[in-house]
C-alpha cells in the first residue's frame, strides 16, 4: 500500500538499526509519549532491533489509559440515564471505572454507541431530537479539534440536545511534569507526530531548552520510529538538546493553524486529573464560558463518585513516568491482565502494560 509499505521496509529497518548501533556509546533512556507509538514499537518488535544501551520508556500517551476513574464513573452515570444516547470512541468502552465500564453499562441496558468522529455524535443528536446525546471527548490535541468542531457546530445550529463530557488532555504540561520531576528517568523524548501535525512543535522548543532534553518529532511506522530514535541518539551522543522534526511529511513547525483556531475558540486549558499520575495544572481542555451550555457535567449534575485509592502494589504511576518498566510490576500478567486490568496502562491496547502483555510475553 502506497505511503505505508515503504515505511515498513525490512531492508531500511536493518540499515537504520545498524546506524543506531554505530552511534551509541552509552546507555540512554528514550521516552515515546504516544500510545500509538508504544503499540507499534511492540507490534513490530522494534526493541529487539536496538542495541542493549537503548531502553525505551513508554510515557503517559494513551488518552484512554490516563482518563481519571472519576470521569469514567460520571460517564457511566450519565450513560445510564434513560433519555441519554452516550456516544464514545470505541476503545474507551472497555476501561473500568468505579461503576464498571461503559461496555458493562451497555450490557445492563444503557444506550452506548461507538462513533468514529465527534461529528457523528452531532448527527445522532439531529436524528434523535427527543433524546440527549452526550459525546465523551477523549484524546490529546489530535482528537480535540474535531470535538471542538462538533461543539461549535452544535452551537451554531442551536442543537439543544447535544453535550460534551470533556476529558481531553494536552501533551506539553505532562511532559513538563515528567521532565521536571525530581525522579526523572528520561534522557530524550520522541514527540508524537500526529499531535505535532495539529499543534506544530514550537511549544516543545522551550521544554527542550529548559530541561536540556532533546526532543524529536516522530511518526508511527517502523522506519519513522527508528529514524526518530537515530536522531535522538545522535543528539544525546553529541550533547545537543534541540527539537528536530523527523516527520516532515506530516508536520510543519506551526502545525495546522485552522485546527488550533477551532481548539482555542471552544476550549481553554485548566487542571486535569491523570489516572496513575495525579492532577497536572493546565493539562486539560475545558469548555469556554460561551459554550458551557454544552457541558455535560453541568447539564447532568452528579454527586462525585466515591473513589478512594489504595495501594495494591500497582506501579502504574511509575510506569507512566518511565521510572519502571511494565515487567517490573509484581501484578503484570498475574493479577493484572487486559481482561481484568488493575493499572491504567493495562486498560487500553495502547497502554504500555497491555502492549507488553499482548506482544512481548515470550519470557513471561
Amino acid at each position, binding site marked *: 500500500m502506497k505511503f505505508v509499505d515503504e515505511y515498513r521496509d525490512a531492508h531500511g529497518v536493518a540499515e537504520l538499526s545498524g546506524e543506531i548501533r554505530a552511534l551509541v556509546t552509552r546507555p540512554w533512556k528514550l521516552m515515546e509519549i504516544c500510545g500509538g507509538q508504544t503499540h507499534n514499537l511492540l*507490534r513490530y518488535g*522494534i526493541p529487539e532491533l536496538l542495541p542493549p544501551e537503548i531502553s525505551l520508556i513508554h510515557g503517559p500517551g494513551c*488518552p484512554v489509559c490516563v482518563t481519571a476513574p472519576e470521569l469514567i464513573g460520571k460517564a457511566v452515570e450519565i450513560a445510564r440515564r434513560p433519555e441519554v444516547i452516550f456516544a464514545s470512541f470505541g476503545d474507551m468502552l472497555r476501561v473500568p471505572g468505579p461503576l464498571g465500564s461503559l*461496555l458493562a453499562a451497555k450490557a445492563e441496558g444503557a444506550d452506548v454507541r461507538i462513533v468514529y468522529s465527534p461529528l457523528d455524535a452531532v448527527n445522532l443528536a439531529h436524528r434523535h431530537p427527543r433524546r440527549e446525546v452526550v459525546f465523551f471527548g477523549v484524546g490529546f490535541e489530535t482528537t480535540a479539534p474535531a470535538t471542538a468542531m462538533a461543539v461549535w457546530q452544535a452551537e451554531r445550529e442551536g442543537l439543544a440536545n447535544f453535550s460534551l463530557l470533556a476529558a481531553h488532555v494536552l501533551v506539553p504540561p505532562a511532559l513538563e511534569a515528567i521532565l521536571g520531576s525530581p525522579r526523572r528517568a528520561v534522557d530524550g523524548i520522541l514527540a508524537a507526530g500526529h499531535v505535532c501535525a495539529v499543534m506544530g512543535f514550537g511549544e516543545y522548543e522551550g521544554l527542550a531548552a529548559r530541561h536540556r532534553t532533546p526532543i524529536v518529532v516522530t511518526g508511527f511506522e517502523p522506519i519513522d520510529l527508528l529514524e526518530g530514535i537515530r536522531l535522538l541518539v545522535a543528539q544525546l551522543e553529541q550533547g545537543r538538546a534541540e527539537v528536530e522534526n523527523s516527520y516532515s511529511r506530516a508536520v510543519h513547525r506551526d502545525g495546522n493553524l485552522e485546527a488550533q483556531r477551532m481548539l482555542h475558540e471552544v476550549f481553554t486549558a485548566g487542571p486535569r486529573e491523570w489516572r496513575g499520575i495525579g492532577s497536572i495544572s493546565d493539562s486539560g481542555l475545558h469548555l469556554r464560558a460561551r459554550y458551557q451550555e454544552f457541558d455535560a457535567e453541568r447539564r447532568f449534575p452528579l454527586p462525585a463518585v466515591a473513589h478512594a485509592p*489504595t495501594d495494591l502494589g500497582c506501579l502504574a504511576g511509575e510506569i507512566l513516568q518511565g521510572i519502571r518498566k511494565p515487567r517490573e510490576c509484581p501484578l503484570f500478567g498475574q493479577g493484572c491482565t487486559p481482561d481484568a486490568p488493575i493499572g491504567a496502562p493495562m486498560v487500553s491496547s*495502547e497502554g504500555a502494560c497491555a502492549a507488553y502483555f499482548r*506482544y*512481548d510475553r515470550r519470557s513471561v
Partner: protein
Amino acid sequence: MNEFALQCPAPAAPDRVQLAHGGGGRLTAQLIERVFLPAFANPALRVLHDGAVLETPGARLAFTTDSFVVSPLEFPGGNIGHLAVCGTVNDLAMCGARPLWLSAGFILEEGLPFDVLERVVASMRDAAREAGVAIVTGDTKVVDHGKGDGMFINTAGIGTVVAPTAISPRAVQEGDVVLVSGDLGCHGIAVLSVREGLEFEAPVESDVAPLWPAVEALLGAGVEIHCLRDLTRGGLATALNEIATASGLGITIEESAVPHAPSVRAACELLGLDPLYLANEGRFAAFLPECDLERALATLRACAVSQGAVAIGRVSGASARVDLRTVIGSLRVLDLLSGEQLPRIC
C-alpha cells in the same frame, strides 16, 4: 474485595453477559469453559472442534450447529441466509465431512418486511444448492416488535465424514505447514462498512461461500490433511491460537505472507483494526505435512473458492503459542483478543 478500593478499579469478572462473550476471543473461551463444558461434559464435545464427529453403526457422522445474528441482515456480497447455510456447511467441511442435511430455525421479529425474508430464503436455497445440501426440517417463531434484530437464523447440519484420517487440532504435527485458502478480512470489513455507515471508494464484498468443494478437492487429490479451521469471528489469529492451545504445539506465521485485499488493508489502517482478527465466511486454514504442500496449493488454486491459497507459516516446538514474524523481520506473540476489536482513538 471492594471494587471502589482499587487504585484503578476494575471489575474482576463481569457478572453479566457482554457482547464480547460472543466475539470468539478470550471471553468466549472462558464462557465455554466456565458454563457449558462442565454442564454438558462428554468426549465428543471435549474435542472443541467446529463440529462433533460421531460414530454410528456403518457411518461416521459430523454434526454441528450455528446461530446467525448479523446486523444488518443484508450486506455487500451476501445476506444472513448465505451465512446461515455456508457457516454450517463450512463447519461440517472443517471436519472432513460431506454436508448432507441442514435444519433451519427462524426467529422473526414482528414487522419484518416479507420481501427481505423472501430474499434471505432465496439466498439459502441458492447456497444450499451450491453446497449440495438439502434443508430437510425447520421451525419458525415470531417475537414482538423490538425484541429481535429483524431475523435470527439457526441452522444445524449433518454430514458424513469422508476424510480417511481424523481431522482435528490433535492431529497437527511438528513440521506441518499452515496455509490459508485466500485473502482474509473481506467479510468483516463488508459488514462493518454497512453497519457503521462507512463508505469506501472500492466497496468490499463479503467472501461468504461454501468451502466443501475445496475440501473435497483436497481429499480427492490424496492430500494428508491434519487440521482444518474456517476463519470466522475472531479471524486467523483466533483460529490459530485455538489450534495451538488444543494441540499443545507452537505456530509461527509470516506476516508478509498473509494475504489481504488492498481495500481491506486500507480500511484497517484507517480504523486502527488488525486484519488478522477480522471475520471471514469463506476462508479456511489447513495444516498438512510439508511434502503435500505443493499438491495442496495446486489443488486449492484450481477451485474458485480457494484460488488465492498460499502458505503462511509452520508448526514448530511445544510452546502452545502463536508467533508472528513481522514484515520487518522481528518476532512477536500473536495473541487472542481481549474482547471485541474496537476502533482505536489514535
